[in-house]
């Protein structure tokens, strides 16, 4: 359960047995052909996988650099890569005989994914969400309810994602015997980061295969993904880590890494423990966790998946930070040149890939993980770009 110093299981003793039970079930499942086939089948017939690898021809031309390819996780059911992991964990929950799932959510994307798989597999679902986020994301709250989930308002702390996660863990501690905690990112205590990677690696595996088919068996010259908790990135990177391919993780620099309004965990954080895992963490000098900031609701997490902390430390992956404004510009450019409205999270990866591609030759190729679609961000974009109030 360790990636170098990072990872581990920093949780109350009450749920230690559940982590062990989960680890055992997970380890058994992933060597069970039946389970793997079922998972692959559900990804295909329910979520529409494989998602395409789209050459961004006009974007690449406009940028005058390397060829940019987009891995289209935005085309998944519910609009992002989140569903890959949600399906995997839900199938595991069913296999373990659990009837109840709980989940945390920030902007509501993982909450919707969790509520979706709960409905599909006939499980009950409670989603913990900060009061502040509930106010900001009324549409997603309604969607979760429509899917039959109970949305639990979290009023502790800053009333956002980290507090919703705390509260979900508290609920899990209380209901651990019959409840499956469906974590949405590559964070949390072992075996969650490993499990989320396992269920998300389909992104990278498909990508490697698709690129090889398009380009005579070659590997790409660079792979870029955005990193909040880091699940789309770890899934995309997974099969490339032991290959000779430069990998780039893109964090949210918010208003700038030199301000106090950012979510650049690896650039600015220190080792610490959050939500059961030892990782890099944005915190005060004496260890209070601080509230991160990004225009993208999916990147403003004060921690990061422990494997990313490790890949950062070992320098296998280069982590860069991109500001709100850079991501907005990239989002607009992608709209105008490719007709794709990506999520603000993904726009961070796009923004960095544009910078990177400019430094590369036109024979080279950069693959960007387009982790989700931007429909959910239209309100934010309108407020930002038109100054209009849309609520």
């Amino acid at each position, binding site marked *: 359960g360790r990636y170098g110093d990072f990872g*581990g*299981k*920093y*949780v*109350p*003793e*009450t*749920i*230690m*047995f*559940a982590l*062990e039970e989960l680890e055992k079930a997970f380890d058994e499942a992933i060597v069970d052909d039946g389970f793997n086939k079922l998972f692959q089948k559900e990804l295909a017939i329910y979520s529409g996988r494989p998602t395409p690898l789209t050459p961004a021809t006009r974007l690449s031309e406009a940028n005058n650099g390397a060829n940019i390819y987009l891995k289209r996780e935005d085309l998944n059911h519910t609009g992002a890569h989140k569903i890959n992991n949600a399906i995997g964990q839900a199938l595991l929950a069913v296999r373990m005989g659990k009837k109840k799932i709980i989940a945390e959510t920030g902007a509501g994307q993982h909450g919707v994914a969790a509520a979706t798989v709960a409905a599909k597999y006939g499980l009950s679902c409670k989603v913990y969400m900060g009061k502040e986020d509930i106010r900001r994301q009324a549409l997603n709250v309604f969607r979760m309810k429509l899917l039959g989930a109970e949305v639990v308002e979290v009023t*502790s*702390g800053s009333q956002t994602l*980290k*507090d919703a996660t*705390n509260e979900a*863990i*508290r609920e899990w*501690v*209380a*209901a*651990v*015997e019959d409840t499956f905690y469906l974590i949405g990112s590559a964070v949390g205590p072992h075996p969650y980061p490993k499990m989320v990677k396992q269920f998300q690696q389909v992104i990278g595996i498909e990508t490697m295969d698709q690129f090889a088919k398009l380009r005579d068996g070659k590997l790409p010259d660079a792979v870029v993904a955005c990193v909040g908790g880091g699940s789309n990135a770890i899934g995309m990177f997974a099969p490339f880590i032991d290959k000779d391919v430069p990998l780039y993780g893109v964090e949210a620099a918010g208003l700038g890494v030199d301000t106090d309004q950012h979510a650049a965990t690896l650039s600015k954080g*220190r*080792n*610490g*423990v*959050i*939500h*059961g895992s*030892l990782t890099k*963490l944005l*915190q005060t*000098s*004496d*260890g*209070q*966790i*601080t509230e991160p900031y990004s225009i993208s609701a999916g990147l403003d997490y004060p921690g990061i998946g422990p494997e990313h902390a490790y890949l950062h430390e070992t320098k296998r992956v280069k982590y860069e930070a991109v500001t709100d404004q850079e991501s907005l510009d990239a989002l607009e450019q992608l709209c105008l040149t490719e007709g794709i409205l990506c999520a603000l999270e993904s726009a961070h990866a796009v923004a960095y890939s544009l910078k990177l591609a400019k430094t590369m030759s036109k024979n080279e190729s950069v693959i960007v993980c387009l982790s989700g679609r931007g429909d959910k961000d239209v309100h934010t974009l309108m407020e930002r770009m038109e100054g209009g109030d849309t609520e």
Partner: protein
Amino acid sequence: MNKRWEVFQNSSDYRFVPYIMAGDPCEEATIELSLALEESGAAALELGVPYSDPLADGPVIQRAGMRGLKQNMTLEKTIKLVSKLRDRGLKIPVIIFTYYNLLLQLGENRFIELARENGADGLLVPDLPYEESGYLKEMCKEQDLALISLTAPTTQLAKLHRLASEAEGFLYCISSLGVTGIRSEFRNGLNDFLKEARSHAKVPVLVGFGLSTREQIEQFEGNSDGYIVGSAIVKKIESLEEQLLHDRQNAIYDFKEFLQSLIPMYSR
């Protein structure tokens, strides 16, 4: 084992161990509340450290932490507060109750050094399970600090035996699933769990989480060596917040009256 732990372990009382939050509602109040607790019969004291993300705590202690944070209480200041408690005459063991991230930022070695210097006797880290506590456990042992182990009703039997037999200071048996807080019901089979723990422990076995009335405390007497009360006491302190800041004398008087009603006679 230091002298304060010796006294604690050799006591024949049904041990009362209260939990309060450092800096709630201010440092001086914490000192006077601690002394009042000792006077009222506390056999040891758990001193909580305010934390932004207390995921093992229920709402009562979360709110206490927020009050402590407003006072800029930190782990380092909490440890140094123990020295002030000693200066004011506190004789019972003091256990620093801190989340692991605070400890990491201060540094585990630095913590132990400070704890020794300031007269703290132990350490309880609710999000550091046995499996992750190897280094800290060893360091504590070397430096004669008790790293308090928690066991839960969901702890597997083999692990319970190991935890119990290795426990220092006392063994903390969690009475129910869930976070800290006041409860009206406890888990079935809890007495079996306590018996099992006691049969392997070399230290007193205490029960905690959710105890808020004398009746609840009394029901565990036969099967444990003491009990921990957190939320019920913190909630009383919360109700006395204004008085503790501006009319401390009367607040402490009121607090002691509350303790009288809570703690069984035989446990003082």
